[in-house]
């Protein structure tokens, strides 16, 4: 399938999903879907760097928080409308991603991973001490009185925004994967020195990869303050984002855009369902146990499972 066709298909399905707001009354499903789709974006974004290029990013939460706090800054400055916040947060996080890209010049493997973790801590400290965005006491971002774009509820608007973001992330990931860029990234993943030697412009490709990945993660964070109305550093930098964005592609499969999508849907939905059906400490225990079971049962992710099964049939 050509990328243009794929993109068109993805966005048509996205609009169909948004159309559901007209039919389904119950808002809980949209809020749960919002959270799951947010993980689709994060997992897909992580996979562009982690899966395609082979650089493990521990700092998803930092990019997510950059997006969230750009929204807070713009809200405090002039109550910016949502589309502008999304755009701005995406750009800022993309620039941060570009900066991280230069780290790959010197740092590989675990050292790169730890460096992203360290960046995340440094950024966290910076936000905690930045009074304009509320510092440690947190910041309030109130929903506008009138819901724009003809939606009846603010939740619907945020859900629609997240659906479009997920569609964008998937379209970008698939485009990267099937392009010359994607083949270059795969060469870097397999053997960076060999790629360099055979004339692949490794640094430039890596910079594109970190920028795209960072921008998409930041994008997912831009609506976070609107969704919660209240952001504080510890919730924006939650460990959950870093770990889920790694675990989901792992469980789904890291070789194609479909893997993170499946992983995020599966793990995200399981987390949502378990939390509202098991009313005690056991809910966290079940999430932990399922995580262990999933990674052990599907060693190459669910996609790896599928392709192994296909091979057998042939």
């Amino acid at each position, binding site marked *: 399938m050509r990328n243009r066709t794929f993109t068109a298909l993805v966005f048509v399905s996205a609009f169909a999903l948004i159309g559901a707001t007209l039919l389904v009354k119950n808002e809980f499903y949209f809020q749960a879907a919002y959270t799951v789709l947010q993980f689709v974006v994060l997992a897909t974004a992580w996979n562009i760097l982690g899966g395609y290029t082979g650089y*493990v990013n521990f700092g998803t939460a930092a990019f997510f928080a950059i997006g969230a706090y750009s929204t807070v800054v713009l809200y405090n400055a002039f109550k910016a409308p949502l589309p502008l916040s999304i755009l701005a947060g995406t750009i800022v996080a993309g620039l941060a991603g570009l900066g991280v890209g230069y780290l790959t010049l*010197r*740092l590989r493997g*675990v*050292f790169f991973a*730890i*460096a992203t*973790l*360290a*960046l995340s*801590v*440094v950024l*966290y*400290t*910076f936000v*905690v*001490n930045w009074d304009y965005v509320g510092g440690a006491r947190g910041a309030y971002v109130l929903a506008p009185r009138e819901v724009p774009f003809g939606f009846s509820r603010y939740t619907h608007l945020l859900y629609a925004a997240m659906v479009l973001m997920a569609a964008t992330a998937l379209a970008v990931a698939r485009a990267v994967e099937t392009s010359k860029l994607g083949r270059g990234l795969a060469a870097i993943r397999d053997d960076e020195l060999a790629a360099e030697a055979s004339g692949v412009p490794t640094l430039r490709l890596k910079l594109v990869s970190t920028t795209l990945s960072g921008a998409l993660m930041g994008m997912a964070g831009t609506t976070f303050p609107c969704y919660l109305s209240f952001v504080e550093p510890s919730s924006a930098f939650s*460990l959950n984002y870093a*770990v889920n964005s*790694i*675990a989901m592609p*792992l*469980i789904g499969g890291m070789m194609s855009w479909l893997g993170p999508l499946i992983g995020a849907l599966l793990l995200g939905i399981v987390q949502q369902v378990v939390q509202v059906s098991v009313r005690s*400490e*056991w809910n*966290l*225990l079940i*999430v*932990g*146990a*399922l*995580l*262990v079971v*999933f*990674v*052990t049962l599907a*060693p190459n992710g669910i996609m790896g499972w599928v392709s192994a099964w296909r091979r057998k049939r042939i």
Partner: protein
Amino acid sequence: MEAASIELFVNAIVAGLLLGGFYAAVSVGISISFGMLDVVNIAHPAFIILGSYIAYTVNARFGFDPILTSVVLSPLFFALGLLLYRIYYLCFEKRGQESLRGLAFFFGVLFITEVTLVLIFGVDYVQARTAYTDATERIAGIDFPLRLVVPFFVSLAMVIGLQFFLTRTFFGRAVLAVAQDQLALRLMGVDPVRVKGLAFALSIATAGVAGALLIVILPVQPSIGREYIGLVFAVCVLGGMGSIWGTLVGALVLGTAESFTATFFGPSWAPAVSFGLLLATLAFRPAGLFGR
């Protein structure tokens, strides 16, 4: 400098070293599992908290010293480590899986350990009581709080012991070799899986002891382990992957940096200083201070 600020300065150094000693105990296990064996055990801090609770329970019931208890009970942790590695090996390493999958696995283990602690011990803050908990020695205007001094020396003993064990014994050298050349090890008639299992078990055993040190220093509740995840990896990488001396030096450097930031600038910036230091080290010496 006036006398008062000299005193402040020396106290900051002493407090930083004491703190660093504790950080070394918390991180040395990661230095073995992550640094030498390439097992990303993100659940290590959760096992530290498990160690804290076990030491606490024995201390509260029978009044035994928590640190002594943890040393006596370290075979238990060793066994737990053996078991955990066995599972990890069968599910991941045997199939040639890279350590990244292990990360998700250990994150699940972290959740499971945390909730198990909640279910068994409840969620209240607990802390062990010993004769040295509230005692402080003051020598020439410098404070030596025993609740930090005792863990400092225990940690030092543990780290030195590990270093000697790893460099002077056959098994220890085998562990170091596992990180470098598994094939050579096989040719020498040593099973690398067995060696890795024992080394991993050793790392979990240090978590048990570190947990006892923690509960002497601070009150603990089940989810507090997450606070230490960043720290343990930072110490391990700062000093140089898989170097025990490096871990000790890295821990002391971070402890001192934290203490100085807290004394002279603002404690709020301490994490930025510590992790900024880590970033700077990575930028100029990507393999860490003592890296090969």
